[in-house]
């Protein structure tokens, strides 16, 4: 699952998955605000989950966007809370 999440992040940042490391920030991978919204949409669609996120207060959400690793952890937590992944 971690690979799948990183694949989505990499695709939105127009990078190869191998170029994306867990310690990298969104800035490091060059993801702007629109890319971020599209990445969240892609994660929601892929895993059948709902991600709490308002672009006006990115820091307010419990969806931790501080690094690739934190995003992966947050998605895994949401999947475990909200049910089985829609995609095997």
């Amino acid at each position, binding site marked *: 699952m971690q690979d799948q999440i990183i694949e989505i992040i990499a695709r939105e940042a127009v990078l190869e998955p191998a170029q994306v490391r867990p310690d990298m920030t969104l800035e490091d991978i060059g993801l702007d*605000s*629109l890319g971020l919204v599209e990445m969240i949409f892609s994660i929601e669609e892929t895993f059948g989950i709902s991600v709490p996120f308002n*672009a006006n207060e990115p820091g307010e959400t419990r969806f931790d966007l501080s690094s690739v690793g934190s995003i992966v952890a947050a998605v895994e937590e949401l999947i475990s809370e909200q049910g089985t992944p829609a995609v095997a």
Partner: protein
Amino acid sequence: MAGSSPRRVVITGAGTVNALGRDVAATVDAMAEGRSAIGALDFPDVERLSMRIGAQVRGWVPGDLFDGARLSLYDRFTQFALVAGREAMAQAGLDAVPGDPTRWGAVIGTAGGGNGTVNDAFRAVFAEGKNRVHPFTVPRLMNNAAASHLSILWGLMGPTFSVATACSSSNHAIGLAVQMIRAGMADGMLAGGAESMLNFGGMKAWEGLRVMSPDGCRPFSLGRNGMVQGEGAAVFVLETLEAAQARGAEILAEIKGFAMTSDAGDIVMPSVEGAARTMRMALADAGVSPDAVGYINAHGTGTTANDRTEAAAIHAVFGARAGQVPVSSTKAMHGHCIGATGAIELLACLMALRQGVIAPTVGFTAPDPDCPLDVVPNTAREAQVTTVMSNAFAFGGLNAVLVLGRV
């Protein structure tokens, strides 16, 4: 056109429908009282939205306002425009346009056009499995429907068209109408904006962008968390100062300056430089200095990005006076009416010029260090002003600023 001095363009009529009121008087009363029309949205499937608030026009019964044969051609945004146009013409003291009707036209800004008609038709074919939509789906949904029906109703045979530049649509429409009159392409215009996107499909699209507030519109306030939609229309009668004086019309204000520019940058993020450049150009077009401006009606959407950027742009243009000139966003009262918003907000400008009342920025909870402005928080204020400015900065990086003055 003969003559060496450019034609001056004035407003002689104003009309509106929005969540604050069904006419100009009710709207400016609500603005002066600082009343907000934002509340729970009410339409089919609203429970499937995560953002369920807006400034919706309530109790709208089109059958009471239009005859049945014509009504089937009118989307809700057209209905709003026609009712606003009727009030504007009455205010201007006109039951028909004065002079040559081939020299009068209509330009109406709208972003979504007949968005409600699109929503209904898509629901029928996709959700309900029908194989037939209403035969007038296309003439109802087209963006020029409101402008065209105004021209049909009032016999305007000159230039008529729609402008679709998102949140700048109305200011562009009004500004272009001014330019056409100045240039001698028309002697008079009905100009303004109309919008109605408060339906399930329309709001679902907005929700996707993650810029909407779930709990309220708080422009320039610390802790603001996004925009809240509204709907409605405002239409103005524009004509030359000379013609208005000749027929003894009451002159509401002069539109002294207009500028439109493009950021050529981001598709959604605003630009300080673009906003500041447009304000400066509009003031130059009006021939007034920033010191003359006594009120700025801000774009003030309540998003973190717009309000911070707009505040910085006002500081760039107004310098030391930036913290003193009253700046308010009326969107916290009537919602962000998108393609109609600039036209509805022009009513706050007219109120400032004519009644000496500055509309407040309601919903204000605490100052944001990123927005060091006098935003007239929560309560209207009396002030004598002679020159006002109205800002609109749209998605797509399209800016439109109007400067109005007393005659």
